[in-house]
């Protein structure tokens, strides 16, 4: 049973296409809420491919070949370089057009425009040096592999500037906690009333990814292999815990592919993943529970 954390205040809202809940030891002053809203708005305006006025839409549509480099570009794209290397190219920040082709486009057509197509080779197309984020040809950045985790980290940092004590930032699947340990159920991807296990998060972040909700047709969902542009089929859900939500989110994505477990080992991170046939794997030395 989900019980409230030992906190005094909960603030729930929708942003970037999902639901958020922020729990703090004391009620959040309005200035803190305003600061959080501003951080989310700025991130969305830089990175959302679902709004015409965003930076990534300008690059994706060809309206601009380069833009002033957004604040989080280096942190995220540098981590993408690690994901790319670990997964042999399966994770790629230029997967936006491949997602749109399957129907997950800015207008949410949700109807495939044709067979899947691979994402462009991003290291040859995208640069972010010299203060400019640039594409050598129009290409749509999609930071879905780790962007929400990055935003959770930014929101947590903002909150810590305003309030003391325990904080839990839960962006529905991506969660960061400071203070008391938080026991988190790992939701069964095929039955949301069940948990396949539990992980405890203490001054860390836990991110989950799954193919069951952001899905719009037979085999059509938002986790693509950039090398083919087709949705993955081997794994149904992943969970990873790391020091930051961005890294946990990145691992949760990498765990859909070969190379994810090795990357997690190199970061000392623990994880769980369930394949589409219902089998569950976990990291060596896993310190949580699996209800097998």
């Amino acid at each position, binding site marked *: *049973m*989900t*019980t409230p*954390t030992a906190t005094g205040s909960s603030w729930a809202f929708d942003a970037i*296409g*999902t*639901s958020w809940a922020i729990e703090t030891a004391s009620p959040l002053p309005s200035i803190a809420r305003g600061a959080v809203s501003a951080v989310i708005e700025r991130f969305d305006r830089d990175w959302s491919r679902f709004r015409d006025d965003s930076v990534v839409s300008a690059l994706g549509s060809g309206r601009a070949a380069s833009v002033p480099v957004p604040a989080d570009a280096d942190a995220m794209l540098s981590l993408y370089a690690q994901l790319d290397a670990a997964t*042999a190219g*399966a994770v790629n920040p230029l997967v936006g057009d491949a997602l749109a082709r399957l129907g997950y486009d800015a207008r949410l057509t*949700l109807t495939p425009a044709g067979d899947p197509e691979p994402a462009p080779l991003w290291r040859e197309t995208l640069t972010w040096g010299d203060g400019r984020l640039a594409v050598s040809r129009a290409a749509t950045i999609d930071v879905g592999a780790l962007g*929400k985790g990055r935003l959770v980290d930014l929101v947590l940092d903002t909150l810590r500037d305003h309030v003391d004590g325990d904080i*839990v930032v*839960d962006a*529905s*699947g991506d*969660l960061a906690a400071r203070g008391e340990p*938080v*026991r*988190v*159920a*790992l*939701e*069964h*991807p095929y039955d*949301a*009333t*069940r*948990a396949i*296990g*539990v992980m405890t998060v203490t001054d860390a972040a836990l991110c989950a*990814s*799954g*193919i069951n*909700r*952001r899905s*719009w047709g037979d085999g059509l969902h938002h986790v693509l*292999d950039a*090398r*083919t542009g*087709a949705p993955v*089929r*081997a794994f149904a*859900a992943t969970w990873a815990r790391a020091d930051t939500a961005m890294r946990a989110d990145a691992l949760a994505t990498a765990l*859909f*592919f*070969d*190379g994810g477990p*090795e990357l*997690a080992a190199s970061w000392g991170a623990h994880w769980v993943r*369930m394949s589409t046939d219902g*089998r*569950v*794997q*976990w*990291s*060596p030395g*896993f310190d949580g529970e*699996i*209800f*097998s």
Partner: protein
Amino acid sequence: MIGTTAVPRPVRISTALLGVAGMVTLAGCSGGASTDAAAPVESSAAPTSTSAPSSSATAAETGASGTYKDGTYEATGQYATPESVETIDVTLTLSGDTVTDVTVTGDPQAAESRRYQSEFIGGIADEVVGKKLDEISVSKVAGSSLTSGGFNEAVDTIKTEAQA
């Protein structure tokens, strides 16, 4: 996705041939139901020999009778499994419209993957059913992100259109 790669013997092969099931289908379709086929290697007298074909045109695509030229057919295919892009080599021998020999040569990438998995995976459990959330004590639940607003409306719209 299946795509043929440039190989020393640039034989075109249909996607249906790049799977055991596809090859079984071919073996059983002497009437020529299959419309694609690989070009034969010009060495039907010696099935294991593999000299390059002079062109990639296929025998079956032009043959009205749907019969296949005897010979040894070879292709290298790449296909994406959900977690990697893997490569197989397929060799099959046709004689009198019957497949007399099939060889599928495995995939070194996958073998490497399995080695990695044994090293970096701590455990595996079959078919985890899990426990009811109300039977365990937790303060949070982590699964795939809830969808809100536009996405849900768009999914509802396409479901409605699909029923119309």
